[in-house]
């Protein structure tokens, strides 16, 4: 057993088969908030909750080498190893592992499926104990803050007081920043990649298009589809297709597809997928619905829309960071038009005004928002340099 829990692991913790090798990630589910439910930002309460999480590496003796990785909107806890649903490698296999940028020989990695998610953490597809049926739209609306508090209860459960670092990209960056603001004394460092301090009007607009696509699908059934035996696959696929465009960039799409035709010599004068880019998007949509729940998509996009770190500080972002002891690193990508560099720069300005310790790098790439998931050497060098710097400052080489 790699995990050193202070108490005997709860009997309802579920191990998977992959822990026979010490280098394999461990996937488990923790039942939390069993005594006191989680109070959400909306005022509603939720509990007990399940939190599905993955760990990799070893927690050191003084429990000082834990890194919490926060996943993005459609990500999950399967950072490394093989994804049990898709059979594909974990979403950050390129960055996380023995000897890699986030080195599991040095650090103990934790990543949990967000509250409202659909990979084992409590979400709208789970059973509402009050009715004995899946929650559907009865599930309370969540915020990024709620997700972060659920993660904090998981850390309590694991007996981890202070994190070495919280790292996240996109919605994960929102969580990482929220972590630093909510629990400034519970982490040494914070890495927010391709993120923002609040969701922009344009991004709320894109999310609304996705939600409307889901809700327009007759199989959505007012959100009650789990009880009516349908799945709003078409709506969810369209939501994914729209969103997927925002994760790329015009140059990247052009480089990959141009105007190339799909399996044909000339256009068919019809509405079949003539172009490769159409066929690619259809594939993205179709494979997404195999692993994601439509109602989860509604709830998680809503949580992102509601995110505004300045709102709780009279609209002054700098106040969110005043006196904050966390060492911050912000990274943006030059061709990211979903979370453009200007968003990160605004956070840097606020942190600077608050005399917080911040590093900021814009990585030159044409790969758009998704660059944080891809092989970007400049980004990887920045991140490993930053983590080394924090380790040096902490006077420890975990």
């Amino acid at each position, binding site marked *: 057993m790699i995990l050193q829990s202070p108490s005997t692991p709860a009997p309802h913790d579920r191990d998977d088969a992959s822990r026979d090798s010490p280098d394999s990630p461990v996937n488990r589910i923790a039942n939390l908030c069993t005594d006191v439910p989680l109070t959400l930002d909306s005022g509603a309460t939720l509990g007990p909750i399940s939190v599905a999480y993955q760990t990799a590496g070893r927690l050191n003796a003084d429990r000082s080498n834990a890194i919490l990785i926060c996943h993005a909107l459609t990500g999950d806890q399967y950072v490394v190893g093989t994804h049990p649903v898709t059979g594909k490698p974990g979403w950050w296999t390129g960055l996380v592992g023995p000897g890699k940028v986030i080195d599991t020989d040095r650090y103990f990695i934790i990543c949990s499926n967000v509250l409202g998610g659909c990979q084992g953490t409590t979400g709208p597809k789970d059973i509402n104990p009050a009715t004995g049926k899946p929650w559907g739209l009865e599930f309370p609306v969540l915020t990024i803050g709620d997700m972060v508090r659920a993660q904090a209860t998981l850390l309590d459960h694991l007996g981890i007081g202070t994190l070495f670092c919280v790292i996240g990209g996109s919605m994960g960056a929102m969580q990482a920043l929220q972590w630093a603001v909510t629990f400034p004394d519970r982490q040494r460092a914070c890495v927010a990649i391709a993120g923002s301090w609040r969701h922009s009007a344009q991004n709320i607009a894109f999310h609304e298009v996705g939600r409307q696509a889901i809700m327009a699908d007759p199989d959505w059934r007012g959100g009650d589809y789990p009880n009516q035996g349908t799945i709003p696959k078409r709506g969810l696929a369209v939501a994914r297709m729209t969103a997927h465009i925002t994760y790329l960039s015009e140059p990247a799409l052009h480089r990959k597809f141009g105007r190339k035709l799909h399996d044909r010599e000339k256009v068919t004068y019809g509405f079949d997928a003539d172009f490769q880019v159409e066929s690619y998007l259809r594939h993205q949509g179709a494979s997404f619905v195999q692993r994601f729940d439509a109602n989860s998509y509604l709830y998680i996009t809503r949580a992102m829309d509601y995110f505004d770190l300045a709102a709780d500080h009279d609209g002054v972002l700098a106040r969110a960071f005043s006196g904050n002891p966390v060492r911050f690193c912000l990274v943006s990508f030059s061709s990211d038009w979903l979370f453009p560099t200007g968003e990160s720069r605004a956070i*840097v*300005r606020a942190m600077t*005004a608050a005399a917080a310790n*911040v*590093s900021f790098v814009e990585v030159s790439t044409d790969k758009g928002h998704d660059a944080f998931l891809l092989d970007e050497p400049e980004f990887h*060098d920045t991140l490993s340099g930053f983590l080394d710097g924090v380790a040096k*400052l902490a006077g420890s080489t975990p």
Partner: protein
Amino acid sequence: MTPTNSTGAIRYDLKLIADMVDRGSRVLDVGCGEGELLAHLRDTRDVDGRGIELSMAGVRAAVTRGLSVIQGDANTDLSDFPDHAFDYAILSQTLQATERPRAVLEHLLRVADRAIVSFPNFAHWRGRWHLIARGRMPVSDYLPLQWWDTPNIHFCTLLDFRQLCQDMDIRVEKGLALNEQGHPQWFAADGPLANILAAQGVFLLSKGTSS
């Protein structure tokens, strides 16, 4: 704008700047390049350092070596920093490349209690000779770029700088006259010889008390 050094050892003029910094202090290095000085200050003087650098390549290199550096412009972004956030603000070989050197100096002594400023002396004899004898803008190993290529837009002499400090009620606590290699010379930085013989000057400044 900054002469480069590929030997790996810290440039001599940077070492002189580092020697002016008290141990354990908070330092802002404006135009920190790849963080050579900040890394030296961190490793030898236990300094809590931050950097601001215009070039992204410089910022990436600095962050990669574990320094806290942000991409930014001394002309516009110093105003983001709160008053007295640092013990020292350092501007090494960058003053002459700023759009409004006077405003930058004001900011340095607003965000920090002391400023350390180094810059090339345009009245150095070699530059004078270039202008008088050859009628051409000076180009040397120390300032290697042609007039149309140089980022240096506000050249001044040591005397000019002293005058500006006087006008701005800035106290010069310490001054060093350096040769082109960055080595300190025997003559005083505020003397008449320095304005001819010094290739560059380094000054430790603080807010004056009109006297």
